[in-house]
C-alpha cells in the first residue's frame, strides 16, 4: 500500500479556523476538513480535538458516526448512485448492477485505476427525476447506464 501523504498541519489548522459558520464544533470542523481534502486525514483528528477542547476519542466518535466521512483519499472522481425507494422503483438496482459491470467492482469503493469512487447514496434530493446519480456533486436525473458511461469518459 502506498504511504499516505498527509496535508501539512498548518494547512489543516487554517481550514479549521476559517469555517463558514459562527458556531465551531467537532462536527463542523470535521465537515470543513472533509470539504477541503475530500477525506479526514488522520493527523487532523488531534488538531480538531485541540481546537474544540475535546478528546481524540470524542472526535473519532463523531467522525465514525456520519457516513459521509472517509479516512483515505477518494478516487479522482466520485460517482453517487441513489438506492432510495423512489429511485428503487425507477430501476436503481438494475442501474447499480450495470455500474458494477462498467467499473469492474462489486461494492462501494475505488476502481483499480483509482479513477472513480463509487458510493451508494440514500437520497440526492431530486426524486422527481429518479433514478438520480451524481458525479462530483453534479446531479443528473433519469439516468441510463450509457449516460454514466459518457459522463465518465468526459472526466
Amino acid at each position, binding site marked *: 500500500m502506498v504511504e499516505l501523504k498527509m496535508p501539512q498541519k498548518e494547512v489543516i489548522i487554517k481550514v479549521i479556523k476559517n469555517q463558514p459558520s459562527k*458556531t465551531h464544533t467537532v462536527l463542523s470542523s470535521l465537515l470543513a476538513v472533509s470539504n477541503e481534502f475530500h477525506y479526514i486525514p488522520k493527523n487532523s483528528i488531534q488538531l480538531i480535538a485541540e481546537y474544540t477542547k475535546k478528546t481524540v476519542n470524542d472526535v473519532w466518535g463523531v467522525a465514525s458516526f456520519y457516513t459521509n466521512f472517509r479516512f483515505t483519499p477518494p478516487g479522482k472522481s466520485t460517482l453517487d448512485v441513489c438506492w432510495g425507494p423512489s429511485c428503487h422503483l425507477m430501476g436503481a438496482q438494475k442501474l447499480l448492477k450495470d455500474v458494477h459491470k462498467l467499473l469492474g467492482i462489486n461494492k462501494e469503493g475505488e476502481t483499480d485505476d483509482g479513477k472513480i469512487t463509487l458510493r451508494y447514496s440514500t437520497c440526492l434530493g431530486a426524486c422527481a427525476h429518479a433514478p438520480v446519480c451524481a458525479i462530483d456533486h453534479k446531479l443528473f436525473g433519469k439516468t441510463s447506464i450509457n449516460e454514466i458511461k459518457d459522463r465518465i469518459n468526459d472526466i
Partner: protein
Amino acid sequence: MDFKTIKKKAQTDWINLTTADNFWVRVGYGTSGYAAGAKEIFEYFTEKTKAMDNVKVDLVGSLGLSFAEPLVDITKEDGVRVFYNNVDIDIATKIFNDHIKNNDIAKEFVFGQICNDSEKAIIGFAELDKIEPLVHTKRIATKNCGNISPTNIMQYIANGGYEALFKALNQLTPEKTLEEVKSSGLRGRGGAAFPTGVKWSFLAGSDSKTKYILCNCEEGDPGAFNDKGILENDPHMLIEGLILSGYATGASNGHVFIREGHEIPIESARKAIKDAYEIGFLGENIMDTGFNFDVEVSLTGDSYVAGEETALMEAIEGKRAMPRFKPPFPAAFGLWGKPSNINNVKTLAYIPSIINNGSSEFKKLGSGNSTGTAIICLSGHIKRPGMYEIEMGMTISELLKNVGGGSSSINDIKLLQTGGPLGGILGASDFNIKIDFDEMAKAGAILGSGGIIVGDTSTDVVDLVRNLIAFNQFESCGKCFPCRLGNTHMLDILERICMSIPNDKDLDVMARIGNSMKTGSLCGHGQLGYNPISSALKYFKDEFDEAVKVSSQPSPRVSGKMILPTRTRP
C-alpha cells in the same frame, strides 16, 4: 433606509424588470432543475446574451413542475410569461434565435403562458395556471417559487416579502403574533403534525434570556424534496417565518439545519441570511424596533436520525446525532441546555402569510383539523412528478389524477408509499381518503413530510418493503438496540424471502420484532420501524403469504440480492 422606502424601490425595480421593453429570461433551477440540466441552459443564455443590454437572464426557483424541466420562460413588456418546457441546447438555440433575436415566439416549443391580465394572453397558448396540474394547486408557502430569483432579496420584498415582519413588529405584540398562529390551526409539517402555536407557547412561557428556534431542513426522507425546495426556491419566505417565530416566542437565536452535500439549499440559505443582515432584517434592532434576532446555518453529516428533534440538537452541538431521553423536553432543556423549539421548513414558510392575511384566511382552507395546504412531492411511476401545494382535503385519487396525471406507464397505480421510509404503504382500495393528517393516519399511512412515491402494478411489494427496511437499517443511529438489531434482523428475513428461501414463521417473527422496536426505542426511527411492513400487510397480505410459502422453485418476480451499502455505524 426604512422599510417603506426599501419596499418602494423594490417595487419600482420589479415593475421595470417585468414590464419594461426588454427580455427577462427566467430559468427554473433548484436541485430538481439542476438534475434536469437547467444549469447548462442558463449558462447558454447568459453567454449568448452577454453583449445584449436588453436581455436579463436569471436563475429562479422551480415552479414545481419537475416533469417539464428544464423550464424556461421569457417575459416582455406586456408582462406575459411564455414558457418553454424540457429545454435542451437545441431548443435553447431556437428560442434564442426566434424569441430573443427576432422577437418571434418559437411556437413549436411553447409549453404555455402565465399572465396576470387575461386580456393580454396570447391566443393559441394554454394558460398554465388555468389548466392541469397548476389549476388544482393553491400556492401559499410556495407562492414565489419559480417567479423570483431566490438570491435577490429585493424581488422577494417586491412580492410582499417582509411585509408580515414589518406588520408584526410595528402593530402586533409577541402575544398577539403567537395568538394569530395558534388560531390559524397550523400544524407542524415535519411529520408529527403537532399544533405549531401550542408548541411555540411552551417556549414563549420560558423566561430564559437565551432561547433557540431551530429550523429543520435535514430532510433525509427519500421522495420528499419540499423543504429543500422552499429553501432553494424562496429562502426569504423561511427566514421571515423564522424571524417571526423568534418574535412571537421571545427567542434570541435561530439555526437553519441542513445536511452537508445539498449545496444549492445551503448556498441559498447562506446568501439569504447574509442579505437579510445587510438590509437590517436580522441582527440588532431589526427594522428600528429594538428587536434582536440572529440566525446561522448549521450543517450535519449524513445521518437520517439527525432529523429527530433531540438528535438534531446533538448534531448542532457537534456530537453524534443520537436522540436524547425525554423528558426534559426541548422547550425546557434544548440546544446547549437552553429552551428550544424545532420547526419544519414548511411550517415556518406559512407564517408570513398567516400574519399578513390573518389566521381566518388560512383557516378557510383545509379540512377538519388540518387547516391550510399540503406541499406534496410526487415521484415514482407518475406522469407528472414534481412539487405541488394543494389544499388539504383533496382526495388521493384526485391528487393522482388531476395533479399527477395518472400512471406514467400502461399499468394502473397499485400503491403509494407515503411519509418517508418510516411511513406506510397505501393500497389502491383506500385512494378515496382525503389528504389530511388525521384521515391519512387512520388509514395507517402518514402524511408526514408530504413525500408520495407512486408504484404501478409492476411494483413488487415485498421488494419495495425490503428496500424501505434496508434504508431504516442503514440509517439507525444504533443507540437503542431494539432498533439497531431489529431492523438488521428484519432485513435479513426480507432478504431471505426475496431470495425465495423463506421460513413459514417469518411474518410472525417480524411482527414480534416490530413490537419490541415500538416499545423499546427512544425515537420514531425505532418506534415506527415496523410501519412499512404492517401497512403493506394490510393491503397486500396475499403477496406476502405467497412469498413466504416454502417452495423449491425460486419465484420469478424476485429481483435477487439487493445492492446495499456495507458501511454501518459502529
